[in-house]
């Protein structure tokens, strides 16, 4: 009895599943998933990673303070009143980040960390709508991590010099 119900459910699921969709554009239709996404390596500052190279064996100082000896080039402009290094960087495993729950996250999956506060951006990013996407509209796409465009310490999108303005018509059409 239970088995037959399950089989019936399975059949129903198969009928509702992607197989029932009308054939879509060639070559391979892109499906949105909640799986881990392929991203290029995180944009580390040259020579800094892995962090354990220096931090291994160093005593952990959890006191919130202004850094003087190292990393003093980092200016935090990202809710800095409420936040400092160890809210995102993990003190026990220096090569990782952690979520608010304490669960460790690799730098490759840092979008999970960003998504804790910016949930709607994470949702749009997964859908391919927030952020730069290159590759194929009907095939594999290349995603970027949040940190490729937004410096996590100062996330406002950096200003750029614009390319030259078009020439006014009289000169362009000469």
């Amino acid at each position: 009895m239970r088995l037959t119900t399950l089989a019936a459910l399975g059949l129903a699921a198969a009928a509702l599943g992607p197989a029932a969709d009308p054939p879509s554009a060639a070559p391979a239709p892109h499906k949105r998933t909640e799986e881990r996404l392929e991203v290029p390596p995180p944009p580390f500052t040259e020579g800094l990673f892995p962090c354990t190279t220096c931090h291994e064996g160093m005593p952990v100082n959890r006191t919130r303070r202004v850094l003087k000896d190292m990393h003093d080039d980092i200016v935090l402009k990202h809710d800095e009143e409420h936040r400092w290094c160890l809210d995102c960087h993990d003190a026990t495993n220096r090569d990782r980040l952690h979520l608010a729950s304490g669960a460790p996250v690799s730098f490759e999956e840092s979008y999970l960390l960003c998504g804790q506060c910016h949930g709607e951006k994470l949702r749009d990013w997964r859908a391919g709508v927030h952020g730069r996407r290159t590759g194929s509209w009907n095939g594999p796409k290349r995603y970027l991590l949040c940190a490729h465009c937004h410096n996590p310490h100062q996330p406002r999108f950096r200003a750029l010099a614009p390319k030259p303005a078009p020439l006014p018509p009289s000169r362009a059409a000469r």
Partner: protein
Amino acid sequence: MTTPEKPKVSRRLFAASGASAAAWVLTACGPRRLHEVPRDRLRVAIREMERKYSQQAGKEVKVSDAGALPGVEFAYALDISRCIGCRRCVYACVEENNQSRNPQLHWIKVLSMEKEKGVDFSHADPYYHPATVPEEGHFYVPVACQQCKNPPCTKVCPTGATWTEPDGIVVIDYDWCIGCRYCMAACPYGARHFNWAEPVLPADAVNTDTHYLGNRPRPKGVVEKCTFCIQRTRAGKYPACVDVCPAGARKFGNLLDKDSEIRYIIEHKRVLVLKEELNTVPRFFYFYAT
């Protein structure tokens, strides 16, 4: 008023039937538009184009005749809340699509608008040049061909040199364009551009991946415009402007695929089209992701 009615009508009828007969003879026996010629004859014409362009550029230029993919209708969406007005798209387009460098010809125009005024073409400025963008109090609306579903431009063409392809791309046959520029007058978006002089395209700048309805080199005296990068998109790639945009403001995909980015945007975001009141029904959408 009442008496000479009859002969007038018959004369007009006679003239009309004569003209249509001539038109029939012309289309049946004369040269055809590239999309009308049989595939094998199109190949011959394309070989000839490849030979000519390769010789001019001093390197092998490929001309594709890839047709529309079945089940595909292309659409574009641009995030007005993300565009920073950097014009990377303008120049990526020029390089990809073999636009004339002199006289300068741009298919994309980035308009700077004031946040106070909203989307308002009468106060838009395409010539902004601050040291860095975005500028305080401004937002940017890049405009190119809107690939309308109800295009005013193709209707006015007296030679049938411009039409809509099955995947929604409005294209131009440069061999049939007589340069009358009616389509430019008809387009409400200023998206069509005329080659007033012989286009100058340095040989080393030629993009050798071309399509016969898109970025193959153009002669003087024809109209050209954005084709959603037909040479790239029919091969599965994103348009060049999508690939280059550092802000990720540009989105592209298949309107008929319910899992596409474009459908997600239309279903979840605030979307607008330019000059909606003109009923051109653009396939180019603008949206606010935030």
